């Protein structure tokens, strides 16, 4: 990319990020293919960190490949698997390899993943990780010791505009801002009215907000998410719209919905950009952007 993610955020343009999921195993072909599709189409690419607590190739490894291929990576970093020492060490490595963006997450619980008896670390939470980054930037580690060479990151976090109740989520959002978050990528949003209400609150803070867009691939998936995934609410009208798709054209319908939502967010300047999660169908992200007019 011609400009860094941080420059894109401050440029005033409508920022677009997307993400890739590393493989379970050493066959990285598909991940590389997805990186190549996305790297010139979006401002930055997140790499998920053992998403849903499923053991995979590391986020840091995926970010290195994005750098190698000329893209701008966002290192997703959860607090689930590493203690203070390991988190800091990975940040040092990331910095020396030119990775400049970190998304700080608490991480899913271990028990929802595929290593159900493993230990969940969670020594830090997302706001503490943000502060840890700021501390490393000051030239000191979390033990208060001098670093021989500091780091500098554009650090971000996530927020769930559909959380119920919403107030605890907003309090945590503020704590993340105070901890140094510069940008937020939101959990998937589908109800634009509710998201606009969240944005009225979020606009009071000096941070950039990228709305989370998860591609709907079927009415069943939409219904499943709204019933089972915390913080995701798909309005019935959208579920019905997905159900109305002719056989074999549900993904096309989902692409249309995602593109339409993005276009609307941009046109009405609701937020600063979008984060598109195609969950394994990264090859359709350019189609979504085309529908959105981007």
């Amino acid at each position: 990319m011609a400009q860094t993610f941080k420059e894109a955020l401050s440029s005033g343009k409508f920022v677009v990020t997307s993400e890739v999921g590393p493989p379970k195993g050493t066959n990285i072909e598909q991940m590389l293919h997805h990186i190549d599709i996305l790297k010139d189409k979006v401002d930055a690419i997140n790499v998920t960190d053992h998403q849903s607590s499923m053991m995979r190739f590391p986020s840091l490894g995926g970010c290195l490949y994005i750098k190698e291929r000329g893209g701008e990576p966002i290192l997703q970093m959860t607090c689930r698997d590493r203690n203070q020492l390991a988190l800091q060490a990975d940040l040092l490595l990331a910095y020396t390899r030119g990775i400049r963006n970190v998304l700080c997450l608490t991480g899913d619980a271990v028990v929802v993943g595929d290593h159900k008896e493993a230990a969940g670390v969670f020594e830090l939470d997302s706001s503490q990780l943000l502060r840890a980054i700021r501390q490393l930037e000051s030239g000191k580690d979390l033990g208060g010791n001098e670093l021989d060479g500091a780091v500098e990151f554009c650090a971000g976090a996530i927020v769930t505009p559909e959380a119920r109740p919403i107030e605890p989520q907003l309090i945590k959002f503020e704590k993340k801002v105070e901890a140094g978050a510069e940008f937020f990528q939101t959990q998937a949003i589908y109800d634009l009215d509710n998201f606009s209400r969240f944005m009225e609150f979020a606009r009071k803070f000096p941070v950039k907000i990228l709305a989370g867009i998860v591609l709907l691939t079927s009415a069943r998936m939409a219904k499943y998410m709204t019933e089972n995934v915390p913080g995701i609410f798909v309005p019935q009208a959208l579920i019905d719209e997905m159900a109305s798709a002719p056989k074999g054209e549900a993904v096309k319908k989902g692409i249309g919905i995602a593109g339409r939502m993005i276009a609307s967010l941009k046109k009405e300047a609701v937020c600063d950009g979008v984060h598109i999660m195609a969950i394994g169908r990264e090859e359709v992200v350019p189609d979504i952007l085309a529908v959105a007019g981007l």
Partner: protein
Amino acid sequence: MKSITKQKSLEEIQQQLEGLSRVYIIGCGTCTTTTRTGGKEEVLAMKERLQGLGKIVTGSTVIPTACDEMTEMSVRENNQAIQNANCILVMTCALGVQKVGSYLTKPVVPALDTLFIGLEDSPGNFHEVCAQCGHCVIGWTAGICPITACHKHLLNGPCGGTNNGKCEVDKTKDCAWTLIYQRLKEQGRLHLMRKYQPIRNSQVVPRPRMVTIS
């Protein structure tokens, strides 16, 4: 305070007792009696199950509180039956197992798994309220311990897995931070939730934990 325990499977007990044919059984009159995992009835039932496996049970007793100093006396009183056994199967929490073991050279074998220290909410329903982390934070969190009640022991508010007041790991479990939020709000003290809580000290008392109170 209660030590909450669960009986191990007979299969695991049998594996631990391999090569040990003569068994003395000890239960506890306090926690494991309440949880019905190592009281008088369970000790007698265990005796029958062991006999069913072809073991000889040389005797049994239920110590009033297996983790206190009276245990030594109880072990001495039953000296003969204990001497006649190859091992002691202990149906107490791990505190009792180790207390019994400290007075004997014979092997002690736990019949139970110690799950947590908990409170009884209603008959038969126990829940953990303290993880004994060494630095109590509940003055900031409306008296609810987030180290214990939150699956990820988060100190600065809920994670994204909170869902209508429930936890992402189990829809039947309350989200600790929703409870903390509600109670602080009721108390008019929501500002406490906005206070940043630093990374907790994992080494307040480094393991093995010991203190001397003079």
